[in-house]
């Protein structure tokens, strides 16, 4: 650069200033959020815990656990046995419900990896002799996958609905949000239960291919949880729409699609992620609630709700099989707690408006 072209900067060197400015790179939201999350010990621990649990339950078919379906009827329910005192040498049998292609392959791989070995009744067994450890493993898998599916449905509907309403504005916005308000005031749980109970009966007569209960389940749950997401996303997009940087981009003649991709989406995503994390435990709670009432996941498949429901039933004055209640309850509660803590931590970490203010 020619020296005469420089402005008077109080005797400071432009090149040095420019170099200094270059060093101040705008930090992407995700990087900063990650850094903040790591500093939040509870949230970071929850994240690690969820990673372990998530991987463990996703690959539950690969673990050397017994099949959650195999029954071994005996007179006395099997209480938990410490692994080092375990004398039972039971052989693994391939005995599952109708597994899909992926799960079937995983189970096959498991028999290749571990042969006939399987863990003993370390967490005890239920009244029909089914291994509790295996049931918790497969149950967490079902619950987590259900929650993910339903939460993604609600995420999609909510983001599209909210963003559309905010971008259109005016009458469209008013009507779309009025619709959300009306839905908010409906007693959803009651309608959901009615719907699930109704779709339960025709399954027998119409055959399972026509109305898959799980599909009804996902759609119904996903349809309930998108409302909050739509409101939050709309608020965020409305704020973004009138922000200086969007105005500036518009003034420079940037096309709408580019503004959406470059300025709106990156700023909506964090909010969506936070609410996804907070929706997950709600969906899991709802799944447990419905399974408890006998309207969610059906035996022989297992889920947290089903296991805890069995556990609550096992609590009676005649014989207290505490492990049937305690272990599933602890497993479910720790996953839910971790999700809530992580959600809270993410909300703090991703709060784009909150600029590194000391906590």
């Amino acid at each position: 650069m020619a020296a005469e072209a420089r402005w008077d900067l109080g005797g400071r060197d432009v090149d040095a200033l420019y170099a200094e400015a270059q060093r101040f790179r705008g930090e992407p939201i995700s990087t900063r959020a990650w850094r903040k999350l790591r500093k939040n010990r509870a949230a970071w621990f929850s994240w690690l815990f969820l990673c372990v649990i998530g991987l463990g339950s996703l690959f539950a078919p690969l673990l050397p656990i017994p099949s959650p379906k195999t029954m071994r009827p005996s007179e006395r329910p099997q209480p938990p046995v410490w692994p080092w005192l375990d004398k039972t040498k039971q052989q693994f049998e391939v005995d599952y419900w109708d597994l899909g292609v992926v799960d079937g392959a995983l189970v096959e791989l498991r028999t290749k990896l571990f042969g006939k070995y399987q863990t003993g009744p370390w967490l005890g067994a239920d009244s029909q002799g089914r291994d509790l450890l295996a049931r918790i493993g497969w149950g967490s898998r079902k619950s987590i996958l259900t929650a993910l599916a339903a939460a993604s449905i609600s995420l999609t509907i909510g983001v599209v609905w909210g963003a559309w309403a905010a971008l259109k504005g005016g009458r469209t916005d008013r009507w779309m949000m009025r619709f959300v308000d009306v839905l908010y005031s409906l007693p959803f749980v009651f309608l959901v239960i009615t719907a699930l109970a109704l779709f339960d009966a025709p399954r027998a007569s119409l055959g399972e291919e026509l109305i898959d209960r799980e599909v009804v389940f996902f759609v119904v749950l996903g349809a309930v949880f998108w409302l909050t997401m739509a409101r939050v996303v709309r608020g965020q997009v409305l704020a973004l729409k009138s922000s200086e940087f969007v105005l500036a981009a518009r003034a420079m003649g940037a096309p709408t699609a580019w503004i959406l991709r470059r300025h709106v989406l990156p700023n909506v995503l964090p909010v969506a992620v936070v609410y996804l994390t907070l929706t997950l435990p709600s969906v899991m709670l709802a799944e447990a609630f419905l399974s408890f009432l006998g309207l969610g996941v059906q035996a022989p498949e297992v889920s947290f709700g089903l296991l805890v429901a069995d556990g609550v039933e096992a609590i009676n004055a005649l014989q207290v099989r505490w492990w049937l209640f305690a272990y599933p309850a602890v497993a479910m509660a720790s996953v839910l707690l971790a999700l809530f803590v992580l959600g809270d931590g993410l909300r703090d970490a991703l709060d784009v408006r909150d600029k590194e203010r000391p906590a």
Partner: protein
Amino acid sequence: MKRFVLRRALGLVLTVWIVVTTAFLMMRVVPGGPFSAERRLPAAVLANVEARYHLDWPIWRQYLQYLGPLNLDSHGLLGDRERPFGGVLAGDLGPSFRYRDYTVNQILGESLPLSLALGSLALAWAVTVGTTLGILAAARRGTKLDLSLRLVAALGIALPSFVIAGLLVLVFSLALGWSPVAGSSTFAHFVLPSLALGAPVAAYVARLVRTGLIESLSQDYVRTAVAKGLPYSTVILRHAARGGLLPAVSYLGPAAAGVLTGSLVIERIFAIPGTGSHFVASALSRDYTLALGVTIVYSVLIYSLNALVDFAYTRLDPRIALEEL
């Protein structure tokens, strides 16, 4: 004021109408009825039973009959029937399909007092304890007490109410023998269920109160109060609490809805013959009228409570005008 009442009344009517229509259509469109479940009835008997409940009518007529207020029964609009009015609009929820000789109104009349007693008990302790703990945690912010209270609150939110119920039964009924396991005959029977039912609400209230109070403690008027030399307790209870409790107040509507929802499970665990357990049973056995009746009554209840809470909110916070709600 007038506008607020009018708008809420309109909203209530709209909500109930949507609930009735959605649920009604859902129930009639899906094949199979309350009498097609287990044992197949002889055709003649089935026809008789269906005629008794007007299931042989076209859907639109069943719908109008159910909605009311005109009674379309047998002999035209205003025939020789003793009751010219019926249906939801006339406050008549029809006969139950399963419990013969009982109308839905009768069943609700018997079960609703139980559920309402349980629900208000749960809400009452949840709000009292939640507010107290929230204020304590905010006043002692950052101490071990605050930390442990927050942990308890997080647990209360994360644990489903039926897990808490199981835990309570295990400890207080079976291990210690202090409380009856199930039933609804004495007050003691309601203690554990209401504890389990209110626990998540208490946890939420405590969290909201803590956050709200901490925010209002940083306000200028609180600093003025401290600078005046008022004792810390007066500052918190008199000055900060007024603003700080507002988020918790607006949560009361959803809390009531949550308690009603939770009662579906809790009543089942403790074998309380309340409305919630009737609802689950009726939905499973396709007792259309009973399931619809419970849904309608609960929607009205939740909607009215929400309106009341909004009204209370404007009284507590003069910055918010009634007209804006």
